């Protein structure tokens, strides 16, 4: 019976956690309204959340695009359709890999940093100190970080896709000698602005929202100790990655249904 009670206990803890995160969210969203008066706070966070993630996104996007160039070529060449390589790479990137891989990188680079930073501020009583100085930490600390995550993520995903397309071009045209013109032209015939591009942007918006939410929640509710902060950071990366992949499946299924 021991494992049964442990299972039940685990489920109860998970549900409690989810409930707390749900209660936490409206307060954060309401607090973002104060950022109209303090844009400087948001800019600061856009720097540490967005700009600092650009490098890893660009490098990863380039490699993924180059990999897609090779893989797409070897699949398509059997059907004599290697001139559609651009289309294949573009669809892969804009529909799936751009939003999903960027969200995973974002969770690892920016999400973990957010959780650790907020958790440490809590552990060192900085958040309490703000409350005592009549400053709401939700507005001053949490809201700008959350909003910066929501804004930065779609931009990073678009950047990833663009760099990936360039990577595919390098391999397709530079290494495999596909015609450069047909690489770009084939995209335009097969990529739909609404189904593919807009669908990808919606995905990246949702991912940004969820990853930022998880990151600030875990930080704000971290146990006030070194071990607690490190546990919260790990939880952010694991939960965010699973949430992104699960949501990606759900959204793909919904968007697929509509076509």
């Amino acid at each position, binding site marked *: 019976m021991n494992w049964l009670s442990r299972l039940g206990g685990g489920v109860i803890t998970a549900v409690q956690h989810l409930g707390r995160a749900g209660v936490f969210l409206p307060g954060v969203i309401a607090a973002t309204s104060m950022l109209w008066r303090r844009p*400087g706070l948001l*800019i*600061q966070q*856009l*720097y540490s959340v*967005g*700009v600092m993630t*650009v490098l890893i996104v660009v490098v990863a996007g380039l490699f993924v695009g180059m990999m897609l160039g090779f893989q797409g070529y070897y699949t398509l060449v059997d059907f*004599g*359709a290697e*001139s559609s390589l651009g289309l294949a790479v*573009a669809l892969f990137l*804009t529909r799936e890999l751009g939003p999903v891989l960027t969200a995973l990188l974002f969770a690892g680079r920016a999400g973990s940093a957010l959780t650790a930073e907020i958790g440490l501020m809590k552990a060192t009583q900085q958040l309490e100190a703000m409350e005592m100085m009549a400053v709401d930490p939700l507005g001053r600390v949490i809201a700008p970080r959350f909003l910066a995550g929501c*804004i*930065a993520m*779609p*931009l*990073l995903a*678009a*950047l990833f*896709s*663009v760099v990936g*397309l360039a990577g595919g071009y390098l391999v397709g045209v530079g290494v495999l000698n596909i015609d450069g013109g*047909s690489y*770009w032209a*084939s*995209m*335009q*015939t097969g*990529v*739909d*602005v609404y189904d*593919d*591009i*807009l669908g990808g*942007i919606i995905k990246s918006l949702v991912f940004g929202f969820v990853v930022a939410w998880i990151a600030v929640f875990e930080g704000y509710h971290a146990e006030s100790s070194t071990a607690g902060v490190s546990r919260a950071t790990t939880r952010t990366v694991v939960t965010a990655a699973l949430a992104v992949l699960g949501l990606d499946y759900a959204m793909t299924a919904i968007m697929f249904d509509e076509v």
Partner: protein
Amino acid sequence: MTRKAIETTVGLFLLIGVAAMIWLALKVGNWSPATTHDYEVTARFDNIGGLTVKAPVTLAGVTIGRVASIGIDADDYSARITLQIDQAHDNLPTDTSAAILTSGLLGAQYVGLDPGAEETYLEDGDRIEITQSAVVLEHLIGQILIRTAEEQDR
């Protein structure tokens, strides 16, 4: 890092990100913001082969529009396609002909327009009368085989 430098890099980041999105929409998705500046004409074909919606419509090799829809004419069982053409090219003569062509031997199919000599121009809702259907490879090969056989018989 000074405040100014941070603000500048953040501005740059936002700019590049938004530019990447717009570039994806325009260049990859081939989105034209001014869709209202198009006019539509129809054309009937006996066979459209592998033509698909959104295939380019070209004039002298230059893309001036795309295929908006593909359907069947219930009266004579021919294929009826609607072409969406940029308003900038509103001076196509009424006796313009349309042909379904293939880019390369196995490439994607598109609609090629060949302007006529009439003084009046095609307008929204008009129909292109002179059309040339797609070349279906199987038919072509069949014809070649028959001809070869006939030559050998002789």
